[in-house]
């Protein structure tokens, strides 16, 4: 009998870990651990609890699938009235919704809560690259697109890819099918391909390249921001170089559509407190995030605006019908 119990004890242990009920609220990171959404959930929920903006620790669940679509569907279909649920989102969420990549689900099926930081888009080359500024690189790509490939952390047609095409569009280059882009597994991987000389440049977010900037392995040609990024003042913006593209990867959250107004208010308050906290400022600094504070209903408006832009672009660029 004791042996019987022993064999089941192992199973019970797993059940315990899987269904830990220490937590009253949940944050879903719609991807495997290690990415931006995971960072959003883990950092924001940790600070939320640490500074007392939320009164209990918040459990982080990873629900990878469909580029965030699986979690989106899960929230829309199964958790629509859950007051204690927040979900990590970013520009990629909006891009995919705009491109109709969540199998028919639309942006108005959830409520966007807010974003409290943004990862500025950057174009990076290896330190020994001949290109010294963004115009050099773009001119070279336009002159000979077949021999200048970009590496990025998102799939073809994703946000990293669109950034490059937007910049080239400003130079009047419209033959976008000729632009070579390879989607690899994240920013760091895109960097190794570029430093290794396999691609001409890397398109991504600054958080993924901070370590390589400090070590001197890479040179950042431009950031796609309105103003220079705090802490990285020597990186010129694309705007300064005459290429008017602003593309940031905001880090934010959404909640179920059917959750009560009281809970929406509670979460926006908590998120606002995190956004104002010194802990968050420190975390932003360490991860190369730039200030970007839009919480509450005006964030929803912003998202809708960005989506219209992406949709128009995607159609123009041919990545979407």
């Amino acid at each position, binding site marked *: 009998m004791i*042996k*019987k119990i*022993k*064999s*089941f004890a*192992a*199973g019970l*242990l*797993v059940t315990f*870990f*899987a269904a830990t009920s220490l*937590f009253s609220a949940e944050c879903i990171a719609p991807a*495997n*651990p*290690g990415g931006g959404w995971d*960072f959003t959930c*883990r950092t924001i929920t*940790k600070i939320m609890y640490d500074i007392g903006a939320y009164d209990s*620790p918040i459990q*982080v*669940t*990873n*629900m*990878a*699938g*469909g*580029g965030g*679509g*699986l979690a989106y*569907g*899960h929230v829309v279909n199964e958790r629509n009235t859950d007051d204690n649920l927040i979900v990590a989102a970013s520009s990629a969420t909006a891009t995919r919704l705009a491109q109709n*990549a*969540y*199998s028919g689900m639309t942006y108005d099926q959830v409520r966007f809560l807010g974003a409290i930081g943004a990862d500025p888009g950057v174009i990076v080359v290896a330190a020994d690259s001949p290109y010294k500024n963004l115009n050099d690189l773009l001119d070279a790509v336009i002159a000979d697109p*077949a021999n200048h*490939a970009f590496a990025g952390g998102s*799939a*073809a047609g994703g946000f990293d890819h669109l950034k490059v095409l937007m910049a080239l569009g400003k130079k009047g280059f419209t033959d976008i099918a000729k632009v*070579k882009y*390879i*989607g690899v597994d*994240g920013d*760091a*991987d895109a*960097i*190794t*391909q570029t430093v*290794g*000389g*396999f*691609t001409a440049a890397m398109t991504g977010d600054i958080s993924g390249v*901070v*370590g*390589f900037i*400090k*070590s001197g392995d890479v040179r950042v040609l431009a950031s796609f921001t309105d103003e220079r990024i705090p802490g990285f003042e020597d990186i010129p913006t694309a705007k300064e170089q005459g290429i008017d593209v602003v593309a940031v990867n905001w880090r934010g959250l959404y909640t179920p559509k059917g959750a009560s107004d009281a809970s929406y208010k509670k979460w926006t308050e908590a998120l606002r407190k995190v956004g104002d906290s010194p802990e968050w400022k*420190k975390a932003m600094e*360490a*991860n190369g995030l730039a200030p970007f504070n839009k919480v509450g209903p005006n964030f929803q408006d912003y998202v809708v605006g960005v989506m219209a832009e992406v949709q128009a672009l995607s159609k123009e660029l041919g*990545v979407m019908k």
Partner: protein
Amino acid sequence: MELIQNLALGFGIALTLTTLSLAIVGCILGTIIGALPGLGPSNGVAILIPLAFTLELDATQALVLMTSVYYGAMYGGRISSILLNIPGDEPAMMTTLDGYPMAKKGRAGDALVLSGVSSFVGAFLATIGLMLLAPILARVAFYFGPAEYFALYLLAFCTLGGIGSENQAKSAIAVCLGLGISMIGVDNSTGMTRFTGGNLHLYDGVDFLVAIVGLFAVTEIFVFIESRGKDSAIGVKLGKISIPFKDIIATRWTMLRATIVGFIAGVLPGAGASLGSFLAYMSEKSLAKEKKFFGTGDIRGVAAPEAGNNAAAGGALVPMLTLGVPGSGTTAVLLALLMTLNITPGPLLFNERPEVVWGLIATLLIANFVLLILNVPLVKIFTKILQVPASFLLPGVAMVSFVGIYSLSGSYFDLLLMIGFGVLGFTLRKLKIPAVPVILGILLGGHMEVSLRRAMVLSNGDWTYLFNSYISVGLWIAAFIGFVAPIFLRSYLKKPTPIG
């Protein structure tokens, strides 16, 4: 001198009571997580991250706890491979090939001790390698472009012939099946979906853990039900438990070679522990003069994959710490943990945060001894599992499988898929087609395809790009030899034996 100073700093951090006890707790938890099918190191570590926050651990302590769990899981995976023929996690898959037959011959205890020792050798030497070579080795990643990765995966598949089966054609069928399954999902280069039938759950492809638990654990349950318990693979003989010094000494070079192979595979981002243990096993098999015992309980077939996968686990920390590139699922989770703790991995981490890096290295060295002590004498307790009647054990395995898979994505779809793989595994077993190559196809097929397509994009479709560096040419030659040599060797070896 600097190295000694750094180590002193590291041990100063590691040898505090809190850190040490965290390492021990991590090792024990990790071993359990590793041994349970369906709960591998990556989700094990992910599940425990909230624990680190709740306990308010500082950066080094959190990292110590998590990497101890990681190393523990790498040790623990072998236990269910050997005792139940169900790999506890994917890198332990190769250990089923000889570990389980060895257990069936009544040498379960020996197999556990031997694999424990080889795990120690692999992990310990890999930690030393991490310590001495990390900053230099990090540069290796810069030499591996799409063409080189493609050649590397090709090498793995070319050496597959005859694995787990006498019949090469059956292995080939199994590989093709795995490669086919690996194509399911959204194609990253075009954004098109393939073989998903419009089902959102399949957009990210089939999780190999679902496949592995289905093909091994669920299949085992089906076989048990079919034979009403008579024909089940479960129920190996215990054997007497002593330390098999003879076997350990006999496999000392095997362990060393496997460590080197595994470590290199681990250092390359994207290759990881599974490829490490696979290449370690295959290279050992190709070096052996007498091959026919492989697959039937050869001690080298037990020592090589375990040294290989544990060395790869250590190797995978190199690109994670120095480049921020996670080489495997588990290092991806560890990377997330680092970021959350405001540590940015990168080329300068060793200089900027020496207390984190050296504290970690010192702990890993200690954790290895803890694990050796934990694993060798505790073999007696592990083998107690064998005394549990299969009719009690298998429902437990079923429950753990379901809970483990459900915890991956929280989706019932994965459970259905797992049962589907169970049916497939059952069919394959009836047809005597090995399941291991299917898993390898799923694990590595996607990487291989993506590498090839990236290479084609970069070269504008020029095939000669695949041979344009010394590294890729070298790998192609090795792959060619790996594929052709057994064909000639076999006819050469067979000559003296008349048929019939």
